[in-house]
């Protein structure tokens, strides 16, 4: 398998041609051995079983695979796993806690900002990064921030409302 094996310790020998990658995923330190050509999206989905990150287009356009790299949205379908070495990755599984949703998650549900759910993880992570940087965004800010994420079902109006709801929630709580 070239999907990346999760190692138990750093002293594990690497196989020929494979590279050892150390990264923090959703706050947890992970050490994995991967083929140099392995995409970050595949490492997350297959190697680390974090299947909330979806692949939609393979060309960095649709944003379904968006994750946060050190807090910044990146398209994990066109980033190699080895490029994430030494970085912190946040996926949708890292939003909120088991008991409590992140305001962005809550907003998407409350404002009907999703239908099929396939683009939702990428949308929410992009929104999370925006709100971390701009706590009081205008509608235009939100639309611009989300312009690298495609949705085919909901048509954005409710997605924008969802992000604005989350912003409002975070400011008032």
């Amino acid at each position: 398998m070239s999907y990346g094996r999760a190692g138990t310790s750093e002293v594990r020998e690497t196989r020929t041609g494979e590279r050892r990658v150390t990264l923090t995923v959703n706050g947890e330190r992970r050490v994995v051995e991967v083929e140099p050509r392995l995409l970050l999206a595949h490492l997350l989905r297959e190697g680390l079983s974090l299947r909330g990150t979806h692949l939609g287009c393979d060309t960095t356009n649709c944003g379904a695979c968006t994750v946060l790299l050190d807090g910044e949205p990146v398209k994990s379908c066109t980033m190699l796993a080895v490029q994430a070495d030494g970085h912190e990755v946040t996926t949708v599984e890292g939003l909120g806690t088991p008991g409590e949703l992140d305001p962005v998650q809550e907003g998407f549900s409350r404002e009907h900002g999703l239908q099929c759910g396939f683009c939702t993880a990428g949308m929410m992570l992009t929104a999370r990064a925006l709100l971390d940087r701009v706590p009081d965004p205008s509608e235009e800010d939100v639309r611009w921030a989300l312009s690298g994420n495609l949705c085919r079902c909901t048509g954005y109006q409710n997605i924008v409302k969802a992000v604005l709801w989350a912003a409002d929630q975070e400011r008032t709580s």
Partner: protein
Amino acid sequence: MTALDEIKIGGLGASRRRVEDARFVRGRGNYTDDIVLPGMLHMEILRSPLAHARITSIDTSRAWEIPGVRLVLTGEMMAQRNLAWMPTLSYDTQAVLATDKVRFQGQEVCVVVADDPYIAKDGCDAIVVEYEPLTPVVNPLQSRAADAPLIRDDKEGQVDNTCYRWEVGDRAATERAFAQADVVSRMQLHYPRSHPSPIECCGSIADFDPATQKLTVYMTTQAPHIIRAAVALVAELPEHMIRIVSPDIGGGFGNKVPVYPGYVASILASILLGRPVKWIEDRTGNLASTGFGRDMYLAAEMALRSDGRILAVRMHADTDQGAFFADAQPTKFKIGLLHSAFACYDIGTGHITAQGHYTNKAPGGVAYRCSFRVTEAMFFQERMMQAAAVDLGMDQAEFRRINLLRDDAFPARTPFGFLVDSGQYGKCLRLGLDAIGYEQFLVDQAEARTRGRRLGIGISTMTEPLGAGNSREYDILGIKMFDSAELRVHMTGKAILRVGAKSQGQGHETTWGQIVAHELGIPAADVIVEEGDTDTAPFGMGTYASRSTPVAGAAISMVARKVRAKARKLAAHLLECSEEDVEWELGRLYVRGAPHRGATIQECAMAAYSNMPDGMEPGLENVAYYDPPNLTWPFACYIATVEVDPETGVWDVLRFVAVDDCGVRINPMVVEGQIMGGLTEAYAMSSMQFQTYDAEGNMVGSNYMDYLLPTAWETPGFELHEVVTPCPHHPIGAKGVGECAAVGGPAAFVNAVHDALSDTGVRNIDMPLLPDRVWQALQDGRDVSGMPPVRSD
């Protein structure tokens, strides 16, 4: 006793938050690609780089040598098992893997199965295929030329590139009406090829168990039961040993109705290897080979009286079907429900002819967010209406108003055979005009024109037939278009509902429970909804053509009513009265004249398992198969205002007003979500989203860098309004809604841009209204055709 509050229990009319969201916002959905089975292998497809070519040789030897490659399949190997060709949903055949020649760019040639998808791709790269190029045919004009190469030389008796001819209406009466006309208006346009392009591509995991001989296929299908039937017939496997599971689907829009070669190949690979085989399509595979929509050339004449009344319509359509006629559509109707055009107007009489053409392009013609070619029908209808208003010198709203069916006209039989049963068209139009401020806009527009600014307003009014069948007229491959629901109420009054439809984002798990709440008073939160597993769900035709609520939704009402009928018997037993004396109110049965003596539906459920009367069959469950008496007829009025920049051809949407009458709304939030999503696709098609081919048959638009979809940045805001005319035959008065906005929306945008150019002599710019097309039309004062091949720079 206080009566139950239906909204509080999540019944009809409640904007209940969606059940599905709980898993989707946590990243815990379960899409096909998320499923991992022990020992699973991965399949990739090698596709043709050429549009039309004879295969002279295929050498797979180097692929077999790659460590981790388990199987390489060619068309010849498929042919040995009689699987090189498969039937389409339109009684044609389609190559699974090419044997003789390739007929479109992106056609499936070989598949490689390996330990992981990277190795499978390596395997595809190692296959050497030699081709002898043939002349590609990229549009109907080339297709019907006398010297055109025969694309379907595999078909016995096929002498040219025509794949069907069809007509409907009254030719003689139409000719008589045209002889009486004061004005004859003409319109001709191309509705470009477009791809539904859900963000999740297609895929399957075939899992054939050599021990039990059972085949399980997890796959992205909107119609799992049709797939089971198709697999039983094509692969000749016994139907009871086939289980199709459609897990969460990341959008469908018609793209996930047909059977695709990848599904078939993964099934054969699993049977040969005795291991699960996963195939997940990449985006180029999706855009270049799976069911597209539209690609239709329409021309019509409208006979008019000088007072603005329509006397007749004569219309011809040519469709570009690609290499295989693979529309998913009812047997009787070769060009879908195109003949629903003008259904909302009194047009007197009409005649439609249609011809389908094979070309060297991807196969399909699927119902992309529409009820079988209704989108083309309504777009053309509304472009024709605008052109006719211009020719008559009439106000476009007034021209529509005088020709729309009046409220007392229902039920009305259209010249093409439909029975339109309900609506308040005039009210919807007036509401839309008031909301946009129509009369004031005309004043502002004239004033702006004096200052060189080009404002435009576009109207689109339409009714469309949603929710096929009835079974007398509608079937797919002979299977009648009914649907089904099975409801089991447990001892404590909680329930499981299984439905033959299959949600792809429409929110069935939420809204189906609301119908049960409405019919039985069981809170929606107490009902689990399950769809998509053919081993457990009753047989249904699936979800497309906006048929879920009209057909499956009706089946849910009917099964709940059967359950209620049994609960009445149980109540009579509990209340020690005769069944005739039992009255129903939401969630409760009581003794007539003594309302304090009653039993809740939950108490009846408990009795069904613990205290049934002697001789009564225990349990509280039933199944209903529903065959609708007619289609449902929602109506919509969409109005857009735009400003065109004459320097650049760029147009901006100023406002967009939508008035939708989709009958009774089960969940208003979900309905509005459907409308906004549909309007976004309407904006996409009118402004940027299309696929075309160059002269060599190379697809332009096979990835998201070339196939443009609007983002949050350019998509305009939408203002929604509603009118409710209950469907007269649906048990809860609901109509379909998922497609109205995508069907009726494009003409509002396009008419608005043409209105802004009304003084230039430009009659038609084909969609999408790219800035360069609009600019060119303004420069030349002439129409701009989008017919392929077009510039691809």
